[in-house]
C-alpha cells in the first residue's frame, strides 16, 4: 500500500515563470524508505518542502500530493498545519541553524508538543528526555536547557530525531541530514535513523548526496537532475544496473568521499 502518491508535481517561480521542478511523479510504500539523489540545484529540497507546502510564497506548485488517501493540496492552511510535524515530520540539514538562536532548544520541543498533543511543559520534557536517552544523548535534562550554539550539529540532529520519536509521524522527510556532519557523527546519526525506522515504523524520504549512506538506508532510489526524475528503481537495481548515464556518472564520482564512512558502517 502506498502512503504517499505524488502526481505530476511541478514547481515554478511566479516572478520569472521559470520551471524548477517539472512534472514529477513518485510513490512511497508504507514503511519503506525512498532516497532522492541528485546534484546541487536539482530540486530535491523544493520537492521535499512542496509536500507539506512549505516553499516560499513566491514559488507556485501544481499537481496532486495524496497522503494516506487525502490530497494535501486541497487542505486549508490550518488543516495542513496539523499534519506538519505530527504526521509528516522534517529533519533539517543543519541542526545548528534549525533552532531559534535566542531560545534554549527545549523551547522548540515544548512548543511543538504543546501544539500537537496539548502537553504542558513537564509532560513534554519527560517525553523528550526519554526519547533523547533512546538516541543515546547523555544528560538530556541539561541539554534541553542549552542554547543551539552550545551543542554540536550531531547532537541537534539527534534531538530532531528524538522529537520525531515522540510524535511518531507516518512520514519522515530528512533533507540531507548528514551533510553538515563529520564522519563519526554521520555514522551515529545514520544509526539513529535506522533505529527510528525500526521503532516507530514510519516511512521515510531521505535526500542525500552520499550514495554510501543511501545504499545503507534506502529501499528505493529516485535520481533527479535539473528538476526532473531521470531514473528510479530499487536500491539494489540502481546500484548494480543503472541505465541512465547520469546515474552512472554519479556512481563513479561518489567513491572516494564515502570510503571512510563505509569502513565505519562495515566495522559495526
Amino acid at each position, binding site marked *: 500500500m502506498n502512503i504517499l502518491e505524488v502526481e505530476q508535481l511541478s514547481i515554478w517561480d511566479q516572478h520569472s515563470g521559470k520551471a524548477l521542478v517539472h512534472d514529477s511523479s513518485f510513490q512511497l510504500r508504507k514503511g519503506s524508505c525512498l532516497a532522492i539523489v541528485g546534484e546541487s540545484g536539482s530540486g530535491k529540497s523544493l520537492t521535499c*518542502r512542496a509536500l*507539506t507546502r*512549505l516553499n516560499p510564497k513566491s514559488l507556485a506548485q501544481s499537481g496532486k500530493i495524496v497522503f494516506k488517501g487525502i490530497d494535501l493540496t486541497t487542505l486549508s492552511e490550518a488543516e495542513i*498545519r*496539523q*499534519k*506538519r*510535524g*505530527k504526521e509528516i*515530520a*522534517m529533519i*533539517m540539514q*543543519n541542526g545548528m*541553524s*534549525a*533552532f*531559534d*538562536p*535566542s*531560545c534554549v532548544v527545549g523551547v*522548540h520541543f515544548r*512548543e*511543538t508538543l504543546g*501544539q*500537537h498533543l496539548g502537553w504542558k511543559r513537564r509532560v513534554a520534557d519527560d517525553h523528550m528526555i526519554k526519547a533523547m536517552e533512546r538516541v543515546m544523548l547523555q544528560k538530556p535534562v541539561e541539554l534541553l536547557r542549552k*542554547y543551539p*550554539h*552550545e551543542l554540536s550539529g550531531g547532537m541537534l540532529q539527534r534531538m*530532531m530525531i528524538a*522529537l520525531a520519536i515522540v510524535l511518531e509521524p507516518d512520514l519522515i522527510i530528512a533533507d540531507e541530514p548528514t551533510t553538515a556532519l563529520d564522519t563519526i557523527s554521520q555514522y551515529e546519526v545514520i544509526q539513529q535513523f535506522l533505529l527510528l525506522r525500526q521503532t516507530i515504523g514510519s516511512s521515510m524520504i531521505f535526500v542525500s548526496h552520499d550514495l554510501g549512506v543511501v545504499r545503507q538506508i534506502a529501499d528505493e532510489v529516485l535520481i533527479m537532475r535539473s528538476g526532473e526524475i531521470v531514473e528510479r528503481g530499487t536500491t539494489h537495481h540502481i546500484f548494480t544496473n543503472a541505465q541512465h548515464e547520469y546515474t552512472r556518472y554519479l556512481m563513479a564520482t561518489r567513491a572516494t568521499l564515502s570510503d571512510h564512512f563505509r569502513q565505519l558502517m562495515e566495522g559495526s
Partner: protein
Amino acid sequence: MSIYIVKRMVLAFLLLIIISLITFAFINLSPLNPAVVVLQAQGIPDTTEELIRQTEQQFGLDRPFFVRYLDWGMACLQLDFGHSYVTNQPVWSTLGPAFVNTFKLTLVSSIAIMIVSVVLGVICALQVGKKVDKTVRGIAFILTAMPSYWLAALMIWYFSVKLDWLPTSGMDSYRSYILPVLIITISYAGIYFRNVRSSMLSNMNKDYVLYGRASGLKESVVMMHILRNSLQVAISIFCMAIPIILGSTVVIENVFAWPGLGSLSIRAILSRDFPVIQAYVLILAISFVIFNAISDMINAAMNPRLRNGL
C-alpha cells in the same frame, strides 16, 4: 550572564576614565592660557603678568596636571564642574537644568523613534515588495532627505502659524513637545525602520523559521520567534539614539528655542567658557558609554551567543 555584566561594567568604567582624561587634557592643551581666557571672558582688557598669576592661583591653575585632573575628576563625580568663566556661577546650576530639558526631549523622541521604526519595519517586512512597503519606503526616503531645520520651519508655519494648533517655541506644556519630537522622529525613524525591516527579512529566511513551520507551529508562534530575534536591533537603536540625539539637538533646539544643552553649548563655545564646554563634552561622552553598555547588556540577555564575545 552575570559574568558578562561585570566584565561589561569594568570595560565601561575604563572607558570613562580614558574619556575624562582626554577631555581634561584637550582643554588644558589648548594653546591659550586659561587664565588669560578667564580674564578675557570677564571682559578685562589689560592682562598684566600680575593679574594672570593671581587668576591662576584663584582657579588653582598653577598646580601639576595630574593633581588638577584628580581634583577635577573627584569634583565632577559630585556634579561640581567648577565655575563658569563668564558668569562665575557654578557650571551645574546652568548645565543641570539644560541637560534635564534636553534629556526629556531626547527620551520622548527615542521612544517615538523606536515605536515608529518597529511598527513600520515590521509592517514593511510582512508586506515586502507590496504597495505598502514601497510607499512607506518612498515617503521615508523623501522625508529623511529633507534638512530638519527646513522641515521644522515648514511645520511651524503650517501647524503653529496657519492652523494655530501648537506653540511655535519654548517648553511650556506637553504640546511643546509635539513638533520637535515629530521632526526628530522623522529624521531618525526614517533611517532606523530600514534596519528593523532588513533584520526581520533576514530572520524570516532563516532555517529555524522553516523548521518551526515544518513542525506545525502556528504562524503567530513562528512570528514571535522572528520578532524576538529582530527586536534586538530595535533595542540597539533605542540605546544608540539617546546619546546621538543628546549630542545633535543643536539645530532643533535653536529653531524651537528649547532651553537645552544644544543652545547652551553653542553659547559656551562662542565665549570660550572652558568649564562649561568641558562639562558638556564629558556629559555627552558619559552618556555614550553608559547607553552603549546598557544596549550591549540587553542584547546579550536576548542573544546568548554575544555573551562569549567579551
